[in-house]
């Protein structure tokens, strides 16, 4: 009976992910997920060995209250941090479950204290190892995304060598743990894994965060899997594998969006302070500057506008003002669409959520390969808070660090409007030659303020 109920729960989780293939079916999917979780929890509560309902109930209420409070209050722009924080909790929970299994193996029927089955010990320590890495890596990712820690990659000598040595040390510790089952060694594994988690994320820079967040998502799944093997629980194994696969695929999509291998991202250091010798001196080139009225004039006289949002839009919270601008343009009979680069923002799909929050219909929001061939037929590209993802150097300049990255071909539209705070380079540290083209107009200022000003000019 238990196995059947767990199976139903696992199937519901699969349907939950399946529902996300379309916005219309996605809400039902989420409900499937909730039902699956309720079944899983109540099935476990029915176990004969589970007697302390009050304590467990209280623990669920406390956790649930905290979780609900945070989830309902969080700003959509802060989603990446929130997700990172949640990942860290999954990791930590995995460590605690493994520890509990180690201290009371009888409750999980994996042996007795001091004589736990070897296979269970291996699975337990692997679960602990992945859980602890997920925990500390996510805490650091949270800090970087939140801005409490500098988003700049921190690199030092022999970094990868040190990580490799620590990894070997952990394997050694696991072997030792399996042999002597010592609590000291168990906690040493936890601490060393936590250290490794920090070291792995520390060299990875701010804009590579979509990959890191997806990777940690994946890890949290593998951690659940490890615990599932320890407890011989198929539900945990299935769910962990689903989550692990999901995170791995997202990491792959994100790294492909930057034309870099996952390894390259993980090794980190990209976009740091290293001297970008490739940057030619552009100080003598002329930049055409405009203001909100110019932008309003240009767009009002166009037939079609494609808006390219980036992380800068999220930082400035400009999505609502931007949508208002789009609405006015649409009323004038102008075709308005949004183009999203796979790595725009700080987590996969971040821009889509922000635009949805601002009530932009999702039909108007298109992915890179859906819209890229439309740029030549478009009169105005309105780039707001994005930079590297529009840089034609990715196609032409082989020496550029971003060479080969798929970009949005905004340069093919008749004119380009760039909303930026300054002439500063993007995350990659590469100058964008688009800024100096004749058909480009730079709109310097805060993204939100600029959109509001354009709205004013348009309605005037």
């Amino acid at each position, binding site marked *: 009976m238990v196995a059947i109920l767990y199976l139903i729960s696992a199937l519901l989780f699969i349907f939950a*992910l399946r529902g996300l293939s379309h916005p219309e079916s996605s809400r039902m999917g989420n409900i499937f*997920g909730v039902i699956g979780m309720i079944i899983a929890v109540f099935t476990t509560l029915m176990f004969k060995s589970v007697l302390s309902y009050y304590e467990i109930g209280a623990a669920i209420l406390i956790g649930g209250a905290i979780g609900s409070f945070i989830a309902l209050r969080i700003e959509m722009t802060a989603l990446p941090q929130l997700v990172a924080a949640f990942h860290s909790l999954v990791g930590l929970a995995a460590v605690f479950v493994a520890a509990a299994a180690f*201290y009371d193996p009888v409750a999980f029927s994996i042996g007795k204290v001091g004589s736990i089955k070897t296979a269970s010990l291996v699975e337990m320590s692997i679960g602990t190892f992945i859980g602890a890495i997920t925990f500390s890596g996510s805490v650091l990712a949270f800090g970087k995304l939140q801005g409490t820690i500098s988003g700049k990659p921190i690199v030092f000598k022999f970094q990868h060598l040190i990580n490799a040595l620590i990894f070997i040390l952990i394997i050694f510790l696991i072997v030792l743990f399996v042999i002597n089952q010592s609590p000291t060694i168990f906690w040493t594994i936890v601490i060393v894994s936590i250290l490794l988690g920090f070291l792995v994320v520390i060299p990875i820079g701010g804009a590579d965060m979509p990959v890191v967040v997806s990777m940690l998502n994946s890890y949290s799944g593998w951690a659940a899997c490890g615990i599932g093997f320890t407890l011989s629980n198929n539900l945990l194994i299935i769910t962990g594998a689903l989550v692990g696969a999901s995170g791995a695929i997202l990491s792959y999509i994100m790294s492909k969006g930057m034309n870099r291998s996952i390894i390259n991202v993980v090794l980190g250091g990209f976009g740091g302070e290293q001297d970008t010798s490739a940057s030619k001196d552009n100080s003598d080139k002329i930049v055409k500057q405009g203001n909100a009225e110019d932008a309003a004039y240009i767009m009002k006289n166009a037939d079609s506008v494609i808006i390219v949002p980036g992380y800068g839009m999220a930082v400035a919270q400009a999505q609502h003002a931007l949508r208002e601008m789009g609405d006015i343009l649409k009323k004038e009979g102008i075709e308005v669409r949004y183009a999203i680069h796979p790595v725009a923002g700080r987590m996969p799909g971040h821009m889509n959520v922000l635009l949805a929050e601002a009530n932009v219909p999702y039909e108007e929001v298109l992915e890179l390969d859906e819209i890229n061939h439309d740029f030549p037929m478009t009169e105005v590209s309105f780039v707001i808070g994005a930079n590297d993802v529009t840089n034609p150097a990715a196609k032409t300049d082989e020496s550029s660090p971003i060479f080969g990255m798929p970009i949005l071909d905004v340069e093919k539209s008749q004119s380009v409007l760039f909303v930026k705070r300054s002439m500063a380079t993007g995350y990659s540290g590469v100058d964008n030659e688009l800024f100096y083209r004749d058909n480009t107009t730079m709109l310097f200022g805060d993204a939100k303020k600029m959109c509001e000003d354009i709205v004013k000019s348009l309605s005037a």
Partner: protein
Amino acid sequence: MEAHSSEVFVIGLTVFFLACIIGYYVVWSVTPALHSPLMGVTNAISSVIIVGAILAAGPQGFDTSKIFGLIGVVLASVNIFGGFLVTYRMLSMFKKKTKKTKEKE
């Protein structure tokens, strides 16, 4: 109930690989626009390790294992409630936009 332990492991491994394959196909079918909600959902369901935490917290009396279990239950609950709710919030923004936008959030 007590099967040979290597047999149990192989069954687990079978389930694991099949689940990975299902995960692979299901996740590729997710539309890119919903990648953020995908992370929200996966976050919530990975907290199914609450099952393990409940087992640890189950026995009466108080010992180390039980305390670890209860902490695990709290942590996983934060995630379950938080993950599903934040996904709910995200998804309700992806509703078809009609004239009346009457939404809770």
